[in-house]
């Protein structure tokens, strides 16, 4: 199909491996995202707290600087599990906001003008499509949650010495595990919403509603039935519960006094169920052709 000949010529060149094609959608989605200045600004702002936390770690490990500061006792600068729990809380909340901005456009853009049949008529499965879009959110949210958290952990380990690292190495598991469940929950929910709602502003609203309305209903249920099981509908709280248990946190930094009421497996079950429900919605919605019943 050379331009100068203006004739159709079949393609006879090499092909990329099938397993890697899902990443094409990821690459194109990132390219579209980075065209938006607002997104770039949002991404930079989401990393600002990491710089502040890094500064804190630096001060905590620098006695000279501590003496220069007009603050109280030097032992207020401690980098323990409470500190990393705080980092996780801050960054996962920022991840929620970033997800609300990025997630709604990922699938809706393809569905608005019926591009899905073009994807699915090629050697490209629905699972590849979902995986490609999921990778966008997973990579993006990882970049502002567990990756900087582990970098801060490394920074602290480097400044405090080997002894600190070995005694706190257990924290790597909760950092990875809690980030993973929260990133997957957020990603699946926003992809499911994106597959149903085409307008970004409405989809963003629906994501907020998906988190806050069930929480409100749960509290109502608790008041009426005089129980605490309604808190299962507060997904953010379920995540904080997992976070607190994983980081062995008893200091109340997570803002609740009734942490032991809901069993941890129930909290995990709620978040995993949310992911599965989102997958069911995606499965129902991501079809090359819609079938009208009746």
């Amino acid at each position, binding site marked *: 199909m050379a*331009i100068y000949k203006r004739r*159709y010529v079949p*393609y006879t060149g090499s*092909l990329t491996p099938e397993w890697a*094609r899902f990443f*094409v959608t990821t690459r194109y989605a990132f390219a579209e995202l980075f065209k938006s200045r607002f997104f770039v600004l949002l991404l930079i702002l989401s990393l600002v707290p990491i710089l502040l936390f890094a500064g804190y770690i630096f001060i905590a490990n620098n006695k000279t600087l501590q003496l220069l500061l007009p603050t109280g006792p030097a032992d207020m600068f401690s980098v323990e599990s409470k500190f990393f729990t705080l980092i996780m809380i801050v960054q996962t909340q920022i991840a929620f906001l970033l997800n609300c901005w990025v997630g709604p456009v990922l699938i809706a853009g393809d569905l608005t003008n019926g591009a899905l*049949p073009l994807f699915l*008529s090629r050697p490209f499965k629905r699972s590849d499509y979902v995986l490609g879009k999921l990778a966008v959110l997973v990579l993006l949210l990882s970049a502002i949650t567990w990756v900087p958290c582990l970098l801060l952990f490394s920074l602290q380990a480097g400044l405090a010495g080997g002894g600190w690292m070995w005694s706190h190495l257990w924290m790597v598991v909760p950092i990875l595990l809690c980030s993973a469940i929260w990133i997957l929950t957020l990603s699946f929910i926003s992809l499911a919403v994106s597959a149903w709602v085409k307008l970004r502003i409405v989809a963003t609203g629906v994501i907020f509603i998906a988190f806050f309305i069930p929480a409100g209903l749960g509290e109502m249920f608790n008041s009426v039935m005089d129980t605490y099981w309604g808190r299962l509908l507060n997904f953010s709280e379920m995540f904080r519960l997992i976070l607190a248990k994983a980081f062995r946190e008893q200091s109340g930094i997570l803002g609740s006094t009734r942490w032991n009421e809901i069993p941890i497996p129930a909290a995990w079950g709620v978040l995993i169920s949310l992911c599965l429900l989102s997958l069911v919605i995606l499965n129902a919605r991501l079809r*090359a052709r819609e079938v*009208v019943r009746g």
Partner: protein
Amino acid sequence: MMIPTIELNGLEVQLGGRTILHGLTGILKSRAIGLLGPNGAGKSTLINTLLGFHSPSKGSVRVLGLDSHTNGQALRPLVGYMPENDAFISKMSGVRFVRYMAEISGLPPAQAMERAHEAFVYVGLGEARYRPVGTYSLGMKQLAKLAQAIAHGPKVLILDEPTNGMDPPARKRLIELIREIREVSDICLLLSSHLLRDVEETCDEVLILRNGQIASICNLVEERRANRKFLELETIGAEQSFTSTLEGLGCECAVFSNGRIKVVMPDKVEIREVFKVALDNGVQIRRMNHRRDSLEDIFLNAMEQTGAVDGHI
């Protein structure tokens, strides 16, 4: 032995609790196949089944020997699909959109970019390739859809109503492109259209659907070669005996409403014998048109018939 382009083996498709395709059986061997039928005949359902979007409830369909349901992953790299409805990513530039689709088909990025540019120039949208697809006119969107369908060099090109919304010059250009693609490569073509002229100009064989059943499979090349004598009669008083007598002479008759009769005459029968039969049966011939067979006739004949037809006419 040559592999048929499309092989239908009792294909039945149910959607939403309704049977859309009723046990289609037939073999289409030509490289350019037209798919005809009125609205709701099942053309799009058949195309969607060929693409693996719908699963057969019974039977199977093979494209180039590959079962569309059980061997879909092997079939899809061979297919280029131009859907009937809007199918694009509106914010992307035309060339980027085609490159994206080519990469999804497995082309490496550099080759996908090259092929996207070539495809855009080839379909005549070279000047508009950097504009967002959402800003294209309807005709340009059709061409962009064709570009994405051919960019990865498919073996089977499935075009669903490709000339929809195009003005006559654009339609003519697109039909020329389709014919050229067919002629200069070994690509197989399946073109679904409600415009008989589009199919007649581009296809060698037609599959006519009606109410989810095969009304006719007709090899246009053979029909053209046969160049049969064709009479269109407008009669008064024509009874069953009139057509029976003509059929006794070796003619094929199709009776339509208001006394219209179409007669295909064998070489040995002269027109004067038709007049003689009419005189004998007391039939008035008010108008007679002598013409050769056309796709329109084949289509109308298929539409008038009752019940499903398996095989060729």
